[in-house]
């Protein structure tokens, strides 16, 4: 099923998403046609059981699909919607129709069943119909229209990361969870998918830099022949491999429930790789890669954005590192092998 999901996504994006469309989406034009195609192909429900109208995929089935979305820099919250419906399904709720986003911010308060406060970092907050958010021990679905206002904020890639301000809004759905779990689930979910999107964007810049190095002639030969360029490209490929391997593991181990340490490892490895990949690919491209016309920055600006979202490399390193230290020297190897500290 994995290949089918991935191939479908690649086919749609290759066919319907150009660099120009990504740029115009950054300018505020939501890609309505593309969204319609993705809906038609059932992507929002890919992780929902068949008897609930979905495709019945598991998380590891969609790893390739999410990577493909990252590679194409798809400028719409399809991954967010797919994962939001996954979370709803996991907790026995029916999927939602429309655009669904989610945020791991903790700015909301609940009082007698009404929600107030600022929900920050909402991907496509200005465009979405619903948003999943955590309040206390509850996972809520809020109608975006119920927000008092939406403050437009964009990440480095021009993707909306808005603040929705709520004032005594009534949640549409409320799912009780263990204390602290609701926020953590959204954070893990976001970190997991961003690690795969980063991997995809790294693959994109790796391919672009490879092609460019083979074509660009300096001092009488393609720059691909310069040892310094080769070594930089090897570093980039190694980091791409780390990102790829780490997120494959995290998706695979999260089939039953989000696997905290492997998601931490994936977000750490992919976020660290993102910086190297952006730096090397720009270095290889030189001045041309610094222009707006050349599409390298479409991917690199996303790398610079996504690495900071849902916890930076530092954020997850500190969490993981503390657990490792608390576990202690004698437990280090056994727990590493077991996959959890």
């Amino acid at each position, binding site marked *: 099923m994995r290949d089918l999901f991935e191939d479908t996504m690649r086919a749609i994006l290759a066919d319907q998403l150009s660099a120009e469309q990504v740029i115009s989406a950054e300018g505020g034009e939501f890609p309505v046609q593309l969204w319609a195609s993705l809906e038609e192909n059932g992507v929002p429900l890919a992780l929902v059981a068949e008897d609930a109208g979905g495709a019945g995929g598991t998380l590891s089935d969609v790893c390739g699909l999410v990577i493909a979305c990252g590679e194409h820099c798809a400028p719409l919250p399809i991954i967010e919607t797919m994962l939001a419906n996954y979370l709803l399904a996991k907790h026995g709720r029916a999927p939602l129709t429309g655009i669904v986003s989610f945020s791991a911010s903790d700015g909301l308060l609940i009082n007698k069943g009404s929600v107030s406060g600022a929900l920050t970092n909402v991907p496509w907050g200005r465009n979405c119909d619903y948003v999943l958010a955590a309040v206390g021990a509850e996972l809520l679905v809020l109608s975006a229209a119920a927000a008092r206002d939406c403050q437009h904020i964009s990440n480095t890639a021009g993707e909306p990361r808005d603040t929705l301000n709520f004032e005594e809004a009534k949640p549409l759905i409320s799912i009780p969870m263990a204390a602290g779990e609701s926020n953590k689930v959204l954070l893990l979910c976001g970190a997991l998918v961003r690690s795969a999107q980063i991997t995809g964007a790294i693959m994109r810049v790796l391919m672009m830099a490879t092609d460019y190095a083979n074509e660009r002639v300096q001092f009488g030969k393609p720059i691909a022949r310069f040892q310094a360029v080769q070594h930089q490209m090897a570093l980039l490929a190694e980091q791409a491999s780390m990102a790829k391997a780490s997120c494959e593991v995290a998706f695979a181990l999260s089939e039953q429930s989000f696997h905290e340490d492997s998601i931490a490892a994936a977000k750490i490895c992919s976020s660290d790789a993102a910086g190297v990949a952006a730096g090397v690919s720009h270095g290889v491209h030189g001045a041309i890669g610094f222009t*707006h016309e050349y599409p390298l920055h479409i991917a690199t600006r996303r790398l610079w954005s996504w690495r900071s979202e849902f916890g930076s490399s530092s954020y997850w390193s500190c969490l993981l590192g503390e657990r490792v230290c608390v576990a202690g020297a004698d437990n280090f190897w056994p727990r590493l092998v077991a996959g959890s500290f």
Partner: protein
Amino acid sequence: MFIEQFRYHPIPAEAESLRSQVREFVAENLQHLSLRKRADSWMGFDAEFSRKLGERGWIGMALPTEYGGADASAFARYVIIEELLAAGAPVSAHWFSDRQSGLQILRHGTEQQRQFYLPAICRGECFFSIGMSEPNSGSDLASIKSKAVKNEGGWLLNGQKVWTTNAHRSHYMIALVRSGESDNRHGGMSQFIVDLRLPGITVRPIKDLTGSEHFNEVFLDNVQLPPESLLGQEGEGWSQVTGELAMERSGPERFLSCMILMYTMLAEIGSKPNVLQQREVGRISARLMTLRQMSLAVTHLLDQGENPSVAASCVKDLGAVFEQELPEIAQLLCDAEPTASGGTDYALVLAHLTQQAPSFSLRGGTREILRGIIARGLGLR
């Protein structure tokens, strides 16, 4: 060896005494400039601000008084520019004329050229661009193809320049072009002062990845240059340019581009840093203190009339690595995410400088070029 050149050379008191004046000037004239705009550093363009600096006598200071300069030491200029850069002042308009074009004209120009250009440069009214790169010659400057052919009117110029900073808002461009045949790869080139208003010149701005317009394509289509536009000796363009490049490698603009990020990051961190923040802030500070002293040591040598090209390349490469690492480190120290629009000053500055960072190792010689120069300086052969 060049490493021996890195001794301690404090700024002389006379030059140091300018510092408080610049700080006052900046406080007065920049108070309304946003931190995000200040983060443009020496890409920030404000012709009016440049004119005001010229009024104060702070442009072309090293030029002789007879041409409008102040006959000042290299350290005097150093104090002025490091204070301006540290404040994020918009210095781009006069930057190239102050840093190199004025000196290049003084060194290689005719008396007539000196009298024509230098006083206007010093007044902050005459802005220069540097026309070196061409579409198929990035690092490989010797492979340029633009060509000036002697004719009865002077020279007929054809070709194309690219990545020419400020060509769309400068008055002149000093262009390196071919002016004859030569067996030597570095021969047959000359420098010309090209009036950018001449017929046949088309300047097309190139948007950078943030959408800003700083650099340009400059198309040269049968541009008739008067004979007096030749700068220096015909055929000596390469050696003239080589001397010019050394001037632009070791200045404080090579490591101060991210100062506004440093300030906003410190504000974000606050006065109770955790150990990770302490360590990274301390390490950044130590490197910056040292880079500045290295840059001053090179300034001392330049002031003595020496050509410390390897030491300057060292400062430039270390500076570029430093500037490029700053946004990388910042995003590890604070949880706030960078924003292209709508966020805090810190978030906006971080996003802006993260995107600008790739250019830090392009302008003024790529990493590969600089490291090659250093390797040769070590005696690797």
